[in-house]
């Protein structure tokens, strides 16, 4: 069958955010080409940020991604605060962790229940899955709503929230305003525990492939928006050293830039990377759920990312409860920030992986240059490597089955293609 002329064309890969394609060519039983491309039309954020006020960065860059706007807001405000030499109130900073927990919960739950679980169980969508599994999908929607409720409580709305600003928040809620979240999060903790136990039972293809895993990591907590950039192969740098170690490359097939480590090449970011670097720092309830289901670091099977997402969802729910328990409204929602000429860097862990921002601003607070490195751009090389690995080991599959496996594999990364350009067109060519 290897020398037959066979061709599979799928115009779009569905259930990802944004648009992309995949092309696989097989010659004489060997894979000669395996490319994952992104044709999301470029929007040129880094170009039109130039000349804008530094205070506009969180609202403008949020529009790169409607799925993870909080990640963009946090990375950008932290970069601006670094330039201007500002340290924010620790309680206000915890509220940033809290809104970030909300985003992890809603984004991970959306991906697990509505986009990814249908793959494992052979459904076309979460809506179709709900017809046969109403309790599970109902649980997922309830969990997702709780994540959204956290974002809305701190930011006014679920998508493109308006609460964050350089220096803190525009307004911080009272304890009473946040109180209704507590019973919902208690329910969410049960739902998240059941989610871990459920996704761990999904039929999991074996596809172990060791990779270099990169994430923000700290010594004393499971890092979300503070820490150093570390890898499973010894990288350990401050956020501001990013450009010394990482490079971006523009390839013809993609409107997303491809990132690589200058020293070693491909690497991956995302929940699995965070878990592999900081497993022991998970909240005890989350660590226990991971171990109960046989998930330990290092996790090298990309299909298990759905289990890691469930564990991180539980972590985020438990952490959110802890923050709410301790919360006392700070006297000032923000510290005033005077613009200072210089360069600032911000990094945080978007649900789908490390998001790096770098800005240069002038003494008037106008942006001179902006650099934004989203997670999906960093994962493109690893996504392609996984695809190659899978194709080589599954040549006997029919084109339709192979295509399904490859699409599922791409969804392991929860790729946010809008962020990176930056659906997939799958083409298997066995000419």
């Amino acid at each position: 069958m290897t020398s037959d002329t066979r061709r599979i064309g799928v115009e779009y890969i569905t259930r990802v955010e944004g648009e992309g394609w995949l092309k696989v060519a097989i010659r004489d039983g060997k894979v000669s080409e395996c490319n994952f491309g992104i044709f999301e039309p470029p929007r040129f954020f880094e170009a039109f940020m130039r000349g804008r006020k530094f205070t506009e960065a969180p609202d403008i860059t949020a529009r790169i991604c409607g799925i993870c706007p909080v990640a963009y807001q946090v990375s950008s405000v932290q970069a601006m605060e670094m330039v201007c030499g500002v340290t924010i109130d620790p309680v206000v900073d915890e509220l940033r962790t809290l809104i970030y927990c909300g985003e992890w919960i809603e984004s991970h739950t959306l991906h697990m229940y509505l986009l990814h679980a249908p793959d494992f169980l052979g459904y076309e969508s979460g809506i179709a899955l709900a017809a046969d599994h109403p309790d599970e999908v109902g649980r997922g929607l309830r969990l997702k709503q709780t994540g959204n409720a956290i974002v809305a409580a701190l930011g006014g709305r679920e998508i493109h929230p308006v609460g964050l600003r350089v220096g803190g928040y525009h307004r911080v809620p009272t304890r009473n305003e946040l109180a209704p979240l507590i019973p919902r999060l208690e329910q969410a903790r049960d739902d998240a525990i059941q989610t871990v136990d459920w996704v761990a039972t999904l039929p999991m293809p074996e596809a172990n492939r060791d990779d270099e895993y990169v994430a923000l990591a700290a010594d004393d907590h499971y890092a979300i928006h503070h820490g150093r950039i570390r890898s499973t192969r010894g990288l350990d740098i401050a956020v501001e050293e990013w450009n010394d170690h990482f490079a971006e490359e523009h390839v013809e097939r993609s409107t997303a830039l491809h990132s690589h480590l200058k020293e070693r090449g491909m690497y991956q970011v995302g929940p699995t990377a965070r878990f592999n670097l900081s497993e022991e720092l998970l909240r005890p309830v989350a660590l226990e759920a991971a171990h109960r289901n046989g998930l330990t670091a290092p996790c090298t099977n990309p299909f298990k990312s759905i289990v890691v997402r469930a564990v991180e969802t539980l972590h985020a729910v438990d952490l959110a409860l802890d923050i709410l328990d301790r919360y006392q409204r700070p006297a000032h929602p923000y510290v005033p920030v005077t613009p200072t000429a210089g360069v600032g860097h911000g990094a945080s862990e978007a649900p789908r992986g490390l998001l790096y921002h770098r800005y240069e601003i002038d003494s008037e607070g106008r942006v001179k240059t902006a650099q934004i490195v989203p997670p999906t751009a960093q994962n493109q090389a690893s996504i392609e490597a996984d695809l190659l690995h899978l194709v080589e080991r599954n040549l006997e599959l029919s084109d339709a089955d192979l295509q399904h496996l490859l699409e599922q594999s791409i969804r392991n990364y929860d790729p946010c293609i809008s962020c990176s350009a930056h659906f997939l067109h799958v083409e298997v060519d066995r000419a």
Partner: protein
Amino acid sequence: MKPTLAVFKFASCDGCQLSILDAEDHIMSIAGAIDIVEFAEATTRREPPPYTVGLVEGSITTPHDALRIREIREQCQILVTIGACATSGGIQALRNAADVDEFAAQVYASPEYLDVLATSTPISDHVRVDYALYGCPVSIDQLVDLVTALLAGRRPYIPEHSVCIECKQRGSTCLLVAPGIPCLGPVTRAGCGAICPAFGRGCYGCFGPSPHPNVAGLLTAWEAAGADRADLAEALRAFTVGAPEFAEAARDL
């Protein structure tokens, strides 16, 4: 046969489509009354046209998309644009007043790989649009109302007043009048629930211009709040910079 719903994406952040999935309370009941046959972000299912309702997110920024929207128009009985990108060109319409080649060279090492238009334009510049939902992102309530209205055969309710009315309904203090904080609320279409003023910050206009915005009058209030023409022009050149009322007012300031 149930009416069919298709969702299409152009240049955008996916946030408005996500609002469809965020309507959790309603999505299952909507899914019962209408058949979602094309929604790439949410389902692998793809059914051939025609479709009863097409929801379009995103703006037109490439030659390919300019052709694709024409095909989609033919396929949909009712075409609805959702969000600031589809209704005004989005924040990426900031390129319209700039040199797109310079923009491309700024971001990409090999701009020759790109095939993009010099402008980001709303869907209505290319095809006839039946209804438009504004906002960056759209309001979930408006989205649910739109779908239920179309199912019931009535017109959807889309506010024609400004954010000021929502501020009053919410009981927020007027930022322009009291603390003197520049705010675009008086010239911005309602729909968000006036959330920014409730957070103590001026509206930044993400729902685009309200009908007949009085920008000249607003300038007086901004000047009293310590801002100038350039500040107001810059504020108008943001999330809905491609909306003619804002683009022209900003040019004339």
